[in-house]
Structures are given as C-alpha cells and as structure tokens.
C-alpha cells in the first residue's frame, strides 16, 4: 500500500495525479475462507480490518451485493458522539470514540473527523431532567458531557432561536464537546483500503442468497448469486437494513424491524453553523458540511420498508422543526433528499453476537445511529468472530437479552435519529 503523505502529493503532482495506485484490489473469490463477512458497509469493512490487524486473521472475504459502501454508510448524516446513558452502551460508544480520535492516522486516510461538538436542546422540564441525568451518568462513566443554560447556549450558537418567544422555548442544552462528525465515504474507503492491503478479499457485486447449514445446525458457508457456493468456518452478517433477510435465510426470526430513515441537504450557503444541534422535542437535527450545505436528519417512517425512500410528511415535519430552531434558514432551498433502510431494535441498541446457528454471528440493529459506532462495532465484532464468542464489550448486546429481559434501554439517549 502506497503511504499517503504530503510528500506523495508533491510526487504525484509531477505526473498530474494520473498514477495513483488503486485503493483496493478486486479479486475473484476463493472457494473457501476462514471467515466470511456479509455486507461491505462501514461496519463490515471495519470488522475485516480489525480481524486482520488486531487478530492476524487475513483469510477473510467481505461479500457485498452492490459496490462497497453504497448502503447506509453512504446515506447517513455523520454524527459521532458517545454520550449514551447505560454503562454497557457508553462503554461501546466511548471505545468507538477513542478509535475515532486516532482513526485518520491509523488508516493513513483522512476521515475528516471534526470534533465540533454536539448539542441536545431541552424544551421541557422533562427534557432538562433527562439530559441532566445523562450528564451525571456520563461523568461517572468518564465520558464528557455538560449542561448549559439557555443564555450560554445562545452565546455559543447565535443563530439558534433561544428566545422566550419561540413556540417551544429552549430551557437549556447538554453538549458533548468531543463529539462531532466525519466524512462517511472516507471512513468506508479508508477501512477498505487498509483491509485490502492486509490481504482481506473485498468481493463486490456478490449477493448472498442463502446460507449453507449442515445437519448439526452449523454454518458451512454461503450461497451467492454470482459465484455459487463459498465456504467458510465462520460467517458474520453485517447487513444493516437487510439483517432480517440474513436471519430468514438461516431460518430464525430476530427482534429487528427495518424502517426507512430520511435525510436532506440544502444548497451550499456561507458558513453559519460550526457545530451539530439536535432536538428530541421538536424532532430534528442539523449541521453544516464543509461545502456549506445544511445537513438535516429526519426521524424514521413508522412502518416496515425496504424501498430506500420514505414518506413526505416526515420531511415536512423535520423542516418545520429546523425552521422552528433556526428561523434564519426559512428561505434556504433544499437540494437533495434520500432514504436509507435502518434496522431498529426494541431497546434502540445493537445486537452483536451468536445466533441459533452455530458459527454464524450477527452484528446488526444499529438502527438510526450506527455511523458513530463504526470503529467500535468493527472492533467488537472482529473479536467475536476471531474467538467464536463475544468479548466483554459485545457480551451485553447478545440477542438473548430479549428473552432474559436484560434490555439496555437507550430510547432516551438515542433521541431523534442517531
């Protein structure tokens, strides 16, 4: 792998940047691997990278039905934070945050991680109490998070309407200053390039259509549309919105439902928002990209859907919330709008671990908020796949919790849509 550096930029400028090496290889698949990962989104690629880097397992294939990184990893609004309520999730997301903080160096790829802070505005006494509780929990966990009054907030974000005359007046806010956002594509491409360099096979345009399961209920590999059967000792499914399909192929049900989640961006305008603001109460969130577009996220559509598009009332509602919070944006025009299919669980936490089929593992249920979890998810799932059982970080997130009742209820902290 050619190392990216200032020097390599200068060197390649001499040949008009026409001789950069390909970022990853496009091999044809072998007949058998140690481990197959289904789904080359952010989580699948990160899993492959940490399998190779941390556990030294490189006889690995990542199978992707389309081109890599075209699913939710390419559709999200890139918010990264770790201020979750319960110890189990705070540990997972904070582990992820620590990986984010060194990710560009680790991958030798600029993921443009920008710790510009994420604010949660509070509009009711209930909001204030929930956020204060969260801040206190985070302080005990060693995760940064602090409360601000409406006056402090107004100083920090002048364009936010913190006046008493607002329809849903802002009473205060919590802010995690280490939170922020990153460039989603670069995260996937950086992991893909680094994993490929370590010998992992990235197989694009290879749709998994079935699981090969023997008489002792042990997985032996997968069936694919383009390359027939590919065998493996272990199979890890990281298919986000299509996780239910993976389970169906293997003959079990899961506590997961797939919903459309929408986002939109505006025309580029001059810089006016240098942070991320979200409101659970009026239900919308916004940041401004480096290009100047406003990046706006909506909530999920309430029905199961696989169509990568949602309903118009959701968009309308979101825009109402944004204009309520930032009246100065009322005449900004929207450029594009799209949807992704997110896999939601009843307690708003992911499912990582074993399945009813031996040697088949699942990493899914990240729902509306898995982008921030990409490094931590990959790290924890790589450990699970390498050892054949979950490690400490992943263990509380087993599917079994829906049977035992040991739920990790993050509905409050997960808030709007991430």
């Amino acid at each position, binding site marked *: 792998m050619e190392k990216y550096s200032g020097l390599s930029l200068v060197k390649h400028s001499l040949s008009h940047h026409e001789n950069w090496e390909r970022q990853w290889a496009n091999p044809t698949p072998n007949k058998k691997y140690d481990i197959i990962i289904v789904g080359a989104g952010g989580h699948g690629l990160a899993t492959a990278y940490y399998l190779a880097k941390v556990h030294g397992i490189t006889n690995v294939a990542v199978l992707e039905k389309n081109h890599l990184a075209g699913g939710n990893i390419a559709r999200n609004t890139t918010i990264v934070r770790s201020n979750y309520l319960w110890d189990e999730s705070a540990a997972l997301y904070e582990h992820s945050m620590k990986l984010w903080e060194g990710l560009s160096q680790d991958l030798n790829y600029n993921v443009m991680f920008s710790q510009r802070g994420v604010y949660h505005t509070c509009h009711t006494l209930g909001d204030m109490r929930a956020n204060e509780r969260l801040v206190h929990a985070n302080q005990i966990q060693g995760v940064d998070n602090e409360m601000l009054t409406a006056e402090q907030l107004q100083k920090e974000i002048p364009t936010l309407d913190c006046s008493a005359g607002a329809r849903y007046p802002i009473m205060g806010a919590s802010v995690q200053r280490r939170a922020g956002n990153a460039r989603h594509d670069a995260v996937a491409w950086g992991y893909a390039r680094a994993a490929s360099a370590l010998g992992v096979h990235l197989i694009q345009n290879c749709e998994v259509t079935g699981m090969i399961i023997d008489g002792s209920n042990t997985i032996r590999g997968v069936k694919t549309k383009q390359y027939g059967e590919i065998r493996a000792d272990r199979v890890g499914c990281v298919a986000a919105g299509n996780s239910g399909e993976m389970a169906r192929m293997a003959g079990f049900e899961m506590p997961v439902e797939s919903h459309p989640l929408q986002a939109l961006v505006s025309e580029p305008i001059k810089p006016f928002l240098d942070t991320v603001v979200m409101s659970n109460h009026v239900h919308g969130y916004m940041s401004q990209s480096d290009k100047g577009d406003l990046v706006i996220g909506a909530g999920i559509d309430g029905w199961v859907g696989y169509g990568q598009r949602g309903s*118009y009332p959701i968009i309308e509602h979101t825009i109402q919330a944004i204009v309520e919070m930032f009246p100065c944006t009322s005449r900004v025009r929207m450029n594009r709008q799209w949807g992704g299919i997110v896999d939601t669980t009843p307690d708003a936490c992911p499912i990582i671990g074993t399945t009813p089929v031996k040697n088949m593992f699942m990493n899914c249920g990240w729902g509306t908020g898995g982008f921030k979890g990409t490094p931590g998810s990959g790290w924890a799932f790589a450990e699970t796949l390498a050892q054949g059982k979950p490690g400490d970080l992943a263990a509380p997130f087993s599917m079994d919790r829906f049977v035992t009742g040991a739920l990790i209820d993050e509905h409050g902290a997960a808030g709007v849509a991430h």
Partner: protein
Amino acid sequence: MLHIYCPHCCEYREEEEFHCKGQAHIARPLDPDNCSEQEWANFIFFRKNTKGQHQELWHHSAGCGKFFNVSRNTITYKIEQSYLLGTAPQPVLDVNKEGKA
C-alpha cells in the same frame, strides 16, 4: 405519502391521519401463566420484518380512532387492501419479490 383506505370510515385518507402499529395477526399466548420466556419474547419482540407482502395493524388515530389491518408491499410500498380485524386478507395475485405481479 401513503393513501390509506379506512374500512370503518369507508374512505381514502392521507397517511398523516394514521399510525402504523406494526405486524398484524400476532396472537396473544392463550395460557400466559405457563409461557416460557422464549414464547413471551416471541410475542413481544421477535418479528417477521417481511421484505415483500406484509400484513400490518393501523390506527386511524386522527380520524375515527378505530383499528384495522392493511396488506402492503414493503418494497414497492403499494397497498393491496385494507380489511377489518378478525378477518383474513382476500387472496391476491402472487406478488414476487420485486413487487411486479
């Protein structure tokens, strides 16, 4: 925007008047005191998450306030029919995975 027929009001109304309440026809365990934890989990949390023709419960929350079922394709989003609780959907043409009849 979905355009939904309420079999109680006997009219098509816009999606905003309704709330989707998830998978339909989930039978409550007949003998709750003797259910295993897995049986309770299946009833409360585990879902079909169908990719294709899906039967779901809807509430006409900003209308008549009554519940009914809808059969809808979760890929095309096309609604096949609305029908009353306690009844089964009418058999329709086999809709394949791409949603083309």
